[in-house]
């Protein structure tokens, strides 16, 4: 059972820079004011590298990875 991670955003830190949506267009979309909309699903296998790059690129470190319990 692999441990999975989910993408979350700290809404108090997000300043709508939008790099996350540029780097992960299939995972993150922006609302009409420029803030990211994330789904609740864990990060798909194979995307972890791209996701970590996006987390590092966020200018305010608002984008984070949270460990989720493996679903059994």
């Amino acid at each position, binding site marked *: 059972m692999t441990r999975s991670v989910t993408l979350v955003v*700290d*809404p*108090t830190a*997000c300043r*709508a820079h939008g790099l996350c949506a540029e780097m992960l267009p299939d995972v993150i979309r922006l*609302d*009409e*004011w*420029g*803030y990211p*909309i994330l789904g609740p699903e864990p990060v798909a296998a194979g995307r972890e590298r791209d996701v970590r790059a996006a987390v590092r690129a966020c200018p305010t470190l608002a984008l984070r990875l949270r460990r989720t319990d493996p679903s059994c």
Partner: protein
Amino acid sequence: MTTTAPDLRRDGVCAPRLLAGWFATGAPADRAAHAARYGPLPVADLRHRAGRAELTETVARAGLRGRGGGGFPTARKLIAVAAARGRPVVVANGCEGDPAGLKDRVLLEIAPHLVIDGIVLAAAAVRARDAVLCLGEGGLQVARIAGALAERSGTDPIDVRVTEVPHRYVASEESALARFLTRGDARPTMTPPRPAQRGVHGRPTLVDNVETLAHLALIARYGAEWYRGCGTAAAPGTTLVTIRGAVWKPGVYEVEYGMSLESVLDEAGGPAAPAGAVLVGGLGGAWLAPPFADVAFTPEDLRAAGAVGGGVAALAVLPRRACGVAETARVVRYLAAESARQCGPCMFGLPALADDMTDLAVGRGGPATLARLRQRLDVVPGRGACAHPDGAVAIVSSALRVFADDVERHVAGAPCSSAGLRPWLPVPGVGG
């Protein structure tokens, strides 16, 4: 430990509990009256672990849930705070940030010693040596509480400190209070961690509504079975509720859970005009359409009926001739102005919702406005640090459903039939 419990029922209906003193004497209870009615504060046993466990156990059996709108089981919070690392602190929330509510202020005014009893008991249960009672800045209750504390000076095992909090909507949220007491910043924080784990100065913080603590003070004296003597199995006990709007006798009442919503409104004399809808849960709550006889007044039943917003502590009746669209637009405009401005979807989403609702209300919005509004209602909720934007979404969503006919007329461009009528809801700056 139980002292002799008062009668559960009088003339077939559940007897008042928190408001018993008020109904008996018509005056706020001073220390002597409080002691005569309720006996001594049962705090001695709480010096020992067995006593603390017993009280928590009793509260759990009683099924007491928070009266601040969250409805969280009180015993679970007590256990969480007692088990967390650090010196606990108790914060009693008497701020009542939602303008539709008056019940906390009324309780503090007429039964301050019940509240203080609850604070002291809760502090003893979690072994806290610090307790703070938070009140809205400049309120009348500040003097009343100061007087009540002076009457008890030195007789309680801990000292209760009073702090005044800016009178803003989000300031009375649990994490906002914790941050305010830590740094003077009354804006909600991102959770987790919740205040029960890390709150004031990083310490485990028990934040409870003042009414919850008052119930706890009675449970500690009379026990769980007595508490469960009124209400339903799933929603035991009584609760204070603020009833306003188009009713004959607006005010604060104590009702038993499980009564029909209609009979709750009848406590306040019933609707003064044919009712169009009732706003359940304050300005961040949701609209319910009549008939009200079929809806039971419990958190679960109200939620199932569509009142998905805040807690059940405030009801506002809107007459049928008033315009729910216009009233809702005013409320959302107010909620937008009360945003803490920490999170984008709230900072921008709520004014956008307010703009759309206002456009609809004045007949300026067509089908495109309605479509855009619905899309925004999907995008805004759940993306803030606190539930403030969710409340705005709840009142708008429910308005579109409950006032569907009015919405259709507005979308078609028909002028509002109730233009010029005074507002009904107690939105600050607008009247009511």
